Structure formats: structure tokens, C-alpha cells
């Protein structure tokens, strides 16, 4: 029997996802929004691993690996976009100032 029941895992993942979603909605700094996205992805991965442990299946960890690769790609592209926006001479990293893409 695992030390952490599946119900508690789902509860923890829900709280973690809510915290991440709050961060995306509340913060306007793009670096913080990216970190909140990572928290949300971690919550989803935790549900997969918890379900894999509950039904004793390796598929949960396979999905964890795929989510890890997705998070790596998402972080790399997001940080590249942040660097690009910052190199254009923006004084802030406010996400609301990025609504005009003029090359």
C-alpha cells in the first residue's frame, strides 16, 4: 500500500493546480507566469504518477516522462520569447504590453 492514498494525491494536485492557475491569472510578469505554468504541469504530472501507483501501472510514469519533455520545450520557447521581447527595448516584462507584434 503506498504511503500516500490516491484521494490525497488528487487533493494535493488540485490545490497545486489552483495555485498555479492563480499565479497565471494574477501575475503580469511573464517570468512568473511561466513559473506558474510549470507548477500547473507538475500538478498534472503528479496526478498521472498517483494514478499509476494506485492501479499499479507503468503508464503513469510514461505520461510523466512525456509531460517532462513538454515542460522542457514550453519553458525553452517561453524564455526565448521573453528574451526576444526584452531585447526590443521594453522596460518591463508585463505581459499586457506584448499585444502588438511588430517584428
Amino acid at each position, binding site marked *: 500500500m503506498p504511503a500516500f492514498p490516491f484521494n490525497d494525491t488528487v487533493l494535493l494536485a488540485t*490545490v497545486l493546480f489552483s495555485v498555479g492557475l492563480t499565479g497565471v491569472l494574477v501575475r503580469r510578469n511573464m517570468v512568473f507566469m511561466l*513559473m506558474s505554468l510549470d507548477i500547473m504541469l507538475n500538478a498534472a504530472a503528479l496526478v498521472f504518477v498517483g494514478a499509476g501507483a494506485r492501479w499499479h501501472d*507503468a503508464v503513469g510514469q510514461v505520461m*510523466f516522462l512525456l509531460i517532462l519533455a513538454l515542460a*522542457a520545450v514550453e519553458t525553452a520557447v517561453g524564455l526565448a520569447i521573453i528574451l526576444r521581447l526584452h531585447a526590443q527595448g521594453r522596460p518591463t516584462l508585463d505581459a499586457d504590453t506584448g499585444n502588438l507584434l511588430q517584428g
Partner: protein
Amino acid sequence: MHALALLAASVTIIGAIMVITRKVAVHAVLYLVVTLLALAALLVMLGASFAAMLEIIIYAGAIMVLFVFVIMMLNLGQSDSAREKEWLRPRAWLGPGILAAIVCAELLYCISPFSGSLPTIPPITAHDVGLSLFGRYVLMVELVSFLLLSGLISAFHIGRNWMEDR
């Protein structure tokens, strides 16, 4: 053992809340690293040691290094000396330090052998994960390789334009 799981879960949630409420990005990165380490401890308790190792190596290692690189390159806010003074103040590293000490104490406690009965169900090892990953889900691996390639190309493209502008 359940108290340990609750402790790691609370460290995870506190760290996540601290991440989204910090003003300085480097402080948020410190808290995010602690959050990921506590999450890795939770994954170990769920029986997924392989996933926990990958979480530490890839997430808390590689992706966080990316974040730190970009935050250093952006160089926002105050001038350098004021920023370094800000970093060396105990208020900056005390919170992540305490949370990391909790996770470390948990780890040291777990290293000592348990007297309780061993679990009857064999854990899911990396062997099972590998068999499943390259057996039934080999198409997913190909799709992830496409995703990684497209991410590499797009990040390179965005960064190349930026370097030409300079």
C-alpha cells in the same frame, strides 16, 4: 510515514504559494526549486523513484538553470551592487533555506532503515517504465521527439533574430 507525506505535501504547497507571491524573480526560482524537490520526495513515497530522479535532474536541475540564466540576462531592476546586497540579506534565502532543510531532514530520516513490514506489492521500476515506453507507446516517443525538435528550432529562430538585432 504518512506524516512525512503530509510534511512534503505542505512544503510543496507553501513553496508554490511563495513562488506566485514573490516580487523578485530569483527568490521565486529558489522557492520553485524547493517545491520541485518536495514534489520529488512525494513521488518517491508514491513508489515512483525513477520519476522522482528525473524530476530532480531535469526539472530542478536543467529547467531551473534555464530560468536562472534568463533572469540573469534580463538584468531587471536595481543596479548590480544593490542587487547583490539584496541577495546576501538573510531575508532572501531564509525561507527557501528552511523549506529545503525540512526536505533534507525528511531525506535523512528516510535513509535510516524502517522497522515496519515491507510492502507486498513490488514497486514500478525503471525497467517496467522502459518496457512500456518503448513497447506500447513508441509512437508517443516519436511524437515527443518531433515536439523537442520543433521547440529547438523555434527557440533557435527567436534567439537568432535577437542576436542579429544587437
